[in-house]
């Protein structure tokens, strides 16, 4: 099937996109920057923050480009005076109800609100008035929730529903008092939240932060090292955040397998890396006590014992159970070894459980 294409202009740049593409996508292709808060390509289109508004010839208001489908011959102005005024005003409105504690905010340096305020030269203090004063939610080991910083973009709501399939958080209340909460406005800890932290990964501001990471390092102090999660065979990628040669946290990257989704173990279970109790060599039990050994010693011992059992009782006296934490390749090799070397088909895997 051929894809029909349509051509439009954005800031006088002509661009051709597949039919059905949004104006935002077309702008991206044309190299025109449009700021967004609530838009996330992985999540349902929401059209709520109104940061991405543009002017389109023949359309009365300033539509949100993230939810406006591009049409043939459309003439879009993404930076006209009306658009600039609207974006600045939206930012001012967000800042008027924001704690502005960037000095101590763990998100500083990686925050869209901060970036756009800088980009559009928005000063604070345009609208004095009521600000929210919600208590900080810090009663769980993983996530700090500061709803005073929330800009209600609804990304966490959609991530929870659409990526994690849990729908723990939702919009509650109306108007200025609208708030994202678990049912009955309890804390995450008191809800059915599984602490996958996928909401943290999508939050564009400092409302949701990884507790230990954001207390260990400023955003610009860390080096990100992309790696594969060792916990299971799914093979999720993520960025280890490294400061002073130590892993201080995990953040999502755009993994081929997982996108930004992770589970609680992958995202928050990195404490073992620098743990003093961590094993660094194989151990062999001698006279009832584990004693440090080299790999050669350990593997030699295993080979010797397996050979002994096979010689004495035959291959079918042996069985092998492999681990879900191994990669596919490792598991393949193990079954090959079991069948070809040990000579038994008795091999299984813990993920069956």
């Amino acid at each position, binding site marked *: 099937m051929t894809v029909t294409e349509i051509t439009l202009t954005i800031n006088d740049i002509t661009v051709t996109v597949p039919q059905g593409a949004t104006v935002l996508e077309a702008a991206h292709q044309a190299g025109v920057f449009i700021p967004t808060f609530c838009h996330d390509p992985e999540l349902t289109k929401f*059209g*709520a923050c109104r*940061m991405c508004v543009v002017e389109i010839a023949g359309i009365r208001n300033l539509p949100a480009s993230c939810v406006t489908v591009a049409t043939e011959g459309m003439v879009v102005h993404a930076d006209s005076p009306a658009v600039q*005024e609207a974006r600045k*005003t*939206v930012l001012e409105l*967000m800042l008027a109800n924001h704690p502005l504690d960037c000095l101590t905010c763990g998100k500083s340096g990686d925050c869209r609100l901060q970036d756009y305020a800088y980009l559009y030269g928005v000063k604070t203090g345009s609208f004095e008035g009521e600000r929210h004063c919600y208590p900080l939610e810090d009663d769980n080991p993983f996530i700090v929730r500061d709803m005073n910083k929330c800009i209600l973009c*609804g990304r966490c709501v959609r991530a929870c529903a659409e990526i994690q399939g849990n729908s723990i958080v939702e919009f509650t209340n109306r108007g*200025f*008092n609208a708030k994202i909460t678990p049912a009955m406005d309890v804390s995450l800890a008191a809800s059915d939240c599984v602490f996958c932290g996928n909401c943290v990964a999508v939050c564009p501001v400092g409302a949701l932060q990884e507790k230990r990471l954001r207390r260990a390092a400023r955003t610009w102090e860390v080096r990100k090292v992309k790696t594969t999660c060792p916990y299971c065979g799914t093979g999720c990628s993520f960025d280890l955040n490294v400061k002073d040669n130590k892993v201080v946290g995990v953040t999502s990257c755009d993994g081929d397998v997982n996108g930004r989704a992770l589970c609680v173990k992958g995202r928050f279970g990195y404490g073992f890396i620098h743990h003093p109790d961590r094993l660094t060599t194989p151990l062999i039990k001698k006279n009832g006590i584990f004693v440090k050994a080299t790999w050669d010693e350990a593997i030699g011992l295993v080979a010797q014992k397996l050979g002994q059992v096979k010689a004495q009782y035959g291959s079918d006296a042996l069985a092998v159970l492999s681990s879900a934490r191994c990669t596919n390749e490792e598991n393949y090799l193990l079954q090959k070894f079991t069948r070809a070397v040990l000579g038994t088909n008795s091999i299984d895997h813990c993920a069956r459980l």
Partner: protein
Amino acid sequence: MGHLSELHARCTDQYIEKFNRSRVIVGLGTCGIAAGGDKVMAAIQHEAASKNMHIDIDFTSCIGICFREPTVEISLPGFAGVIYGDMTPDKVPYLLESHIINRHPVEEWAVMQISEGSTALYENITKMNDYPFYSKQVRTVTSRLGRTNPESLTDYVATDGYKALEKALSMQQLDIIEEIKKSGLRGRGGGGFPTGMKWGFVYQAVGAKKYVVCNADEGDPGAFMDRSVLEGDPHSVLEGMAICGYAVGADEGYIFVRAEYPLAIKRLQTAIAQAEKYGLLGNNILDTGFNFKIKIKAGAGAFVCGEETALLTSIEGNRGMPRVRPPFPANQGLWGKPTNLNNVETYVNVPFIINRGSDWYTSMGTEESKGSKVFCLTGKINNTGLAEVPMGISLRDIIYSVGGGIQNGKRFKAVQIGGPSGGCIREEDLDLPVDYDSLTAAGAMMGSGGLVVMDETTCMVDVAKFFLSFTQTESCGKCTPCREGTKRMLEILNRLCSGAGRMEDLDTLERLGRVVKNTALCGLGQTCPNPILSTILYYRDEYLAHIQDKRCPAGACSALLVYQIDPDKCKGCSKCAKNCPAGAITGGKKKPYFIDVDKCIKCGACLPGCQFEAIYNDAAPHRNNCRPATRRTA
């Protein structure tokens, strides 16, 4: 299809039979009940039983003259029905004795008389058509209101009910849609979208399952058109929806009614059960093979759920928040299926158009706005109530003829149309014809039909503040400009009304208004700045007075009132000082008293107590009118 004609004949016989007996009918709409109609009803029943009177006692809904509720109609066989207003239980014995036993209507309590068919008229009672409230009205959508028993299928069928459905079921679907298109009917929910065109979209939309939804959320403050129709003529809504269902190919309908309308919900439930019983709803309607069921969904009272996408989301069981259109409900509505969504009044127009033809309909109204429109007259107007007028009538006619002018002989100042989405219209524009486009051009909008009249004592800044405080609390909170922008606009208006306004506040209001209008996601946000922008445009002076002089010219913003005592009039009686809870008034024997502005809490307790009318403020101005401009000294 012999079915309906049989039913029609039977119902008509029963209906006509009623007129052969003496009847007493009490108006029991919500307004009637609130005014004490149920107590009047009880008194009538008691009186009739104790005097052993052979009369029919029945009820109806509000006929529109809410300002005269409770109303009672008495009709004797062969005579016109007389409608009495302001009834109370203690008037009942005399009323029944005079009108029923002695056959003398009580002229001084009578509002008007209505002659059905060839019944004889009384000499000294105004005929409905001559009664000023009705003389410029047309009654189509409201024709059964106050005339039939809303819980009686007999009354409905006898007054041509379900005839249009029967006729429609013998027509081609597209012919029905074409007829609606030709009628020029536009959506009565506020937007004025051509109804026939919408039905056409739903008809064309691909899908085996389609829905018909009726928007009876009616959240505008001061609006009660839809409630009156639902309470007074529920079957007509069902009939309109069923015709629509057949035309667009839907077999299921929902009525979204706000839960604050329990009487409307009850009467709809009764009507649905009756219609199902007689095969007018449900499976195989009138033996044509057409199936159509209607369910009621009670809304939890969020204004934003009147917005169509929020409404559908709410029926689906989710939080009522608007979503971006397109896709429009016509293509992806309830549970993603093609859905036709119209307002109550829109559906009620349909059976009339099908019965009487689009030519009849287009004979009323203007070029672009056909038919009639129901308005709720409220505010500082003499006749508050429900009025159905032909499109194109002037606002002046509505206010002065139908509405009977301004209360207490005060001067007209503005009329607010379109509720929180609308704007204010000045004296200069009162001759504008009421149609969708003229009102929009004047900075207001037709809206759903709320019409609030304001007089010289109304402060326009306060009006803007009222509507903004409504939209601010009703904003769903989804999009930034509406959620945060309304809050800041409201804060600024509060500041102006408390005397702390600054000149730059006007620019900020205009900028915020412009941005919120341009960028909000749904109609609520896009229109909520209208009350501010239109009042700044037309009543800038009043805003300036609040900011520069710290004065409210209408005397409505209590924080800006400065109470003073005219030393020439003060006789030193000290009564005011005793009435003042703040101890702000001092003086001595035979010396004029004095109000300390800093201590005064502006409660007004001193004002009525002064026999010598020596105390004054903006709301109760100084008689000599020569006081210096009141500036706050604080």
